[in-house]
């Protein structure tokens, strides 16, 4: 053991030296072979990459360490938790127990939770796309000098707490809320219309919170489209609408797809909105985790469900970007 290390320590500089030599040789040979100024620049950058290979890692280190400490390690701990045995009364015991997973796979309630989550997240995403695209288009195409102000307006709601924004819907949709009060004042209804604590209000709240993400994503990709492309399509015989369909829409799809993915994942992972705006039956999968951990103090089951949600959303993101070919579309666009 000691011998090997000594050898390693000694041989390391030698190897480095040899490597450098080797690089220098290659360098010289290649310059001799094709020595134009342009080529020399390429060759130099090739040779330098070896010496500078460590630099990106150094630059990435803070992020990677933060991610490891705050994400990866806790998730691993969480994963081990899912094999603990729940003893009741908020106590559990380390073990290699598959009961939590078995419960998830056999209990239809959880499966219904997944289905409901997917459905509500999908509806939210589609609504966000339908509402967000025109808004993003208007901002991107606006001749308004201070476009940044329009974008600022979009981000403005983020300055108010998410909880307060969600709670504010109660004052709009509630029995004493703005809409019912107005309708009653106008004499159009005598009894308040129940608008809160149902699936509609949950979706409404989620759209409220997710729409800016969609608009920003679509906006960025619209902004990146060369205006001349539309002009070119027009001169080649397209009406404004046809040019939109042929050029603007397909070229903004990467942004739309990214926005959809983001909205779907954020919607499917949320639990506060259904908690505040939903009725007892309008729960999402996140609420099941919340209940397991906060209400029942059943950490092992909560950990299991969290892992399920993580795996499902991760898989969706992976499959999505694989089949939507996001990276491929981007590659086609970058010249």
């Amino acid at each position, binding site marked *: 053991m000691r011998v090997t290390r000594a050898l390693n320590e000694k041989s390391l500089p030698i190897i480095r030296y040899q490597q450098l030599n080797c690089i220098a040789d290659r360098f010289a040979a290649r310059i001799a072979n094709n020595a134009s100024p342009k080529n020399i620049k390429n060759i130099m950058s090739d040779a330098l990459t070896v010496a500078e290979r460590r630099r990106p890692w150094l630059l990435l280190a803070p992020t990677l360490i933060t991610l490891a400490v705050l994400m990866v390690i806790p998730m691993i701990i969480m994963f081990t938790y899912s094999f603990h045995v729940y003893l009741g009364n908020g106590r559990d015991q380390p073990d290699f127990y598959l009961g939590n997973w078995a419960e998830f796979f056999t209990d239809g309630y959880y499966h219904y939770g997944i289905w409901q989550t997917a459905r509500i997240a999908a509806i939210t995403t589609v609504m966000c796309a339908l509402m967000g695209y025109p808004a993003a288009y208007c901002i991107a195409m606006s001749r308004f000098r201070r476009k940044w102000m329009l974008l600022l307006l979009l981000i403005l709601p983020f300055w108010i707490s998410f909880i307060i924004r969600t709670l504010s819907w109660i004052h709009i949709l509630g029995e004493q809320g703005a809409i019912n009060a107005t309708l009653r004042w106008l004499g159009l209804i005598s009894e308040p219309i129940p608008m809160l604590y149902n699936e509609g209000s949950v979706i409404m709240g989620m759209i409220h919170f997710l729409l800016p993400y969609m608009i920003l994503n679509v906006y960025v990709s619209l902004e990146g489209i060369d205006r001349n*492309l539309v002009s070119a399509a027009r*001169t080649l015989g397209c009406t404004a609408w046809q040019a939109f369909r042929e050029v603007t829409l397909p070229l903004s799809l990467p942004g739309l797809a990214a926005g959809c993915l983001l909205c779907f994942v954020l919607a499917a992972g949320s639990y506060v909105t259904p908690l505040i705006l939903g009725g007892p039956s309008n729960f999402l999968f996140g609420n099941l985790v919340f209940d397991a951990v906060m209400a029942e103090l059943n950490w092992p089951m909560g950990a299991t469900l969290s892992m399920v949600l993580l795996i499902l959303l991760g898989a969706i993101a992976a499959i999505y970007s694989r089949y939507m070919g996001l990276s491929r579309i981007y590659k*086609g666009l970058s010249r």
Partner: protein
Amino acid sequence: MTQGEPTVELRRVTLGYGGFIAVKDVDLTVPTGTFVTLLGPSGCGKTTILRAIAGLVPALGGEIIIKGRRVNDVPIHKRNIGLVFQNYALFPHKTVFDNVAFGLKYRGVDKAAIEKRVKRALDVVRLPGVESKLPSELSGGQQQRIALARAVVIEPDVLLLDEPLSALDANLREEMRVELKSIQRTLGITTIFVTHDQEEALALSDCVVVMDHGRIEQAGAPEEVYRWPASRFVADFLGQSNLLPGQIIDVANSGATVRLSGGGEILVRNGAGAQLGQAVETVIRAHRVMVRPPGHETGPNLFDGRVQSVAYLGGMAAYVIEGEIGVHAINTIDRQIFREGDRVQVSIAPEDCVLLDDKGLRIGH
């Protein structure tokens, strides 16, 4: 300039963006089959005029007429225009075939005919067999040719080219310039070309239109514009010129005599209309100032001088001459190149001088 029915006519056209007037009261006639170049410094409104012909910029005033039809109110897609953009503007998500076929598809051409015409267009631009590639897989010069193919395949009434060569490197540019001209000739397509490269303009065009600040300064055949600049701007912008201030001291049938402020008197042949005592500027092209050994020539406008500096340009040499007259000269080097300090004789043909009045406009002619 070739005679013929005009394909494009602008009549007192004014164009602008918001409150800003970019082009004012421009008249332009482009005869069928000709190659017309808009030349001018950056921001003078060249692109704006092209976009107006294509319908991308509305006319604030005046009339735009294509093939005898007033098109001011005709939407873009109903004008039959081929436009090649400065940055090519190929559709990045469509293959080369779909790019070139695009205009045909919207003209309702049937599939078989589209295929044939796309193939022929790609042959014309000498890029056969790239149909299934994406634009990003092509080099700059190739993309440029595809853009050209896409524009000509629809057989447009007029082909508009907005600095199509500016993104290419010098060698490729030269090559594409020749190719562009030959394609234009082969197809006999009326072309309006925009550039701020004067060499390109002079080399390619049947007619050069020199613009400045949204106005047309002069339009005419390349030799004519080069030789007879209509204004100080054209004289200064096109080629290298000596602009020598002076005063008319004699007017005769054979021409006018100018006393130059910098010393010397010069006989000018083309000065009909010049008034005695009028302050003028004499324009002499640097290429038309002949530098000779002393005592070499006889005739009018001979000046003794000394070579103050010389720059070797390959086949040419650029001299700065001081002495009786201070001028720049660019001469071919036939036998000898003069050195700094050499005594020389400068001769200027009276026919090669143009007089400008105090407003910078040409006198006479």
